[in-house]
């Protein structure tokens, strides 16, 4: 079965602190993984993607994610968050037939 689990519906972080958003996936083949971000009242934008190679991938705005095959995880990280990072973050798996399998999202709240 193909699935994506984001175990944290909400994460609250102080501005300037580091961040990790968790993502676990289930997929029998080689996973293509993405993180998308949705800012308030906006569509979704790609943050970063992983296909193969270096398990740490860099994205926009200082975000990075680390792929772990042994843990079936693709956690998103940022060293120092800014108030403008407040958004909902989705972990996504590209499954069969070009269909994307979405996690339920993690709402990131930045405390001043």
């Amino acid at each position, binding site marked *: 079965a193909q699935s994506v689990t984001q175990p944290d*519906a909400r994460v609250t972080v102080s501005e300037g602190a580091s961040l990790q958003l968790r993502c676990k996936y289930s997929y029998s083949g080689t996973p*293509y993984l993405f993180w998308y971000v949705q800012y308030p*009242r*906006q*569509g*979704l*934008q*790609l943050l970063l*993607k992983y*296909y193969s190679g270096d398990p740490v991938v860099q994205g926009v705005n200082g975000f990075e994610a680390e792929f772990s095959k042994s843990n079936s995880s693709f956690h998103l990280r940022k060293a120092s968050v800014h108030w403008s990072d407040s958004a909902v973050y*989705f972990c996504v798996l*590209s499954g069969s*037939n*070009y*269909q*994307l399998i*979405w*996690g*339920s*999202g993690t709402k990131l709240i930045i405390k001043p």
Partner: protein
Amino acid sequence: DMKVTQMPRYLIKRMGENVLLECGQDMSHETMYWYRQDPGLGLQLIYISYDVDSNSEGDIPKGYRVSRKKREHFSLILDSAKTNQTSVYFCASSPDNANTEVFFGKGTRLTVV
């Protein structure tokens, strides 16, 4: 400027009315999608289109149909809208398959009363 455009952005319809949601993209992408987003559920795929007149059901196609007569245009139709179809609908497109970036429109907030 690469863009997916959805019209209208906001729509209120009465139960039983027909609803047409329009989507256009200016990138000549082959693949287009319709999703709905409900609180706590992420995005659910309604239909995927691989090209003109080549459409497939997604995870929740019941109560919806689609039309793609031109590559740049993909419509979502609700025949006799129901209150449980109140949601935010997103259209998206990608060049040839979803292993590349998917581009999203800003969404249509549909309320069925």
